[in-house]
């Protein structure tokens, strides 16, 4: 069985100055591994959107990145409020982000659609009051 290269990150909640650190770290690792720039860009954008969502909505969480010869899998898990209507959340422009987040340039309701756009597979497993786990793959 093929061995996975795994990286784990803890995302602090409600700290916008640090949002993106995990995504930047993964981007740098993928660069050093010599992956093509388009793949790195897809992973970076999808993971950053997920990371920002965790900071905005879920008081942080954890991200696991697994790299195999076939794909890069990102698993973003939080114990936040959960998503009541996933289909609605997937719509372009739909957002429940608070005003202070919007004033920073986020909360345009593009996060989940962007994540889907830049990945080859995305699954959202969410229970209201329990948390959300988003799994995304970018094929290599």
């Amino acid at each position, binding site marked *: 069985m093929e061995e996975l290269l795994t990286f784990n990150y803890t995302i602090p909640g409600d700290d*916008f*100055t640090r*949002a*993106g650190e995990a*995504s*930047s770290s993964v*981007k740098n690792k993928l660069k050093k591994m010599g992956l093509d*720039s388009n793949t790195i*860009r897809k992973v*970076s*954008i999808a993971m*950053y*959107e997920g990371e920002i969502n965790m900071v905005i909505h879920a008081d942080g969480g954890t991200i696991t990145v697994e790299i195999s010869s076939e794909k890069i899998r990102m698993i973003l898990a939080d114990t936040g409020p959960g998503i009541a209507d996933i289909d609605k959340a997937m719509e372009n422009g739909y957002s429940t982000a608070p005003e202070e987040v919007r004033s*920073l*340039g*986020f*909360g*345009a*309701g*593009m*996060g989940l*659609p*962007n994540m889907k*756009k*830049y990945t080859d597979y995305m699954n959202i497993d969410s229970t209201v009051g329990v948390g959300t786990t988003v799994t995304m793959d970018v094929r290599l």
Partner: protein
Amino acid sequence: MITTQTLIDAGLFTLKTAGDPSKNIGKVFCCDLLSIAMGRAPSESAWVTVMGNRNTLAVASLADISCIVLAEGITFQDAELDCAEQEGIAVFTTELPVFDAALKIQELLS
């Protein structure tokens, strides 16, 4: 296609930090909503915006944007400029509105 160095040499805007001047610029992109910029900004672009916070840099870095032009007199703090330099992203400032700044870059591109 021009490089960031071309933009520096043109002297259109105030250079705050040069980053990696060899980066290519193929397009100019204007947007202030980071969520939209993240998904839509072309790689190797010059990004004109009035959104001057640390997250602007994170988006630019992760989306492979070559340089940021802060319009309307907006500036970054020193810590953000240090971060931009480390990420190899050039930062310019200008008093011009977004459209006028973008038009000047477009004129260089064409």
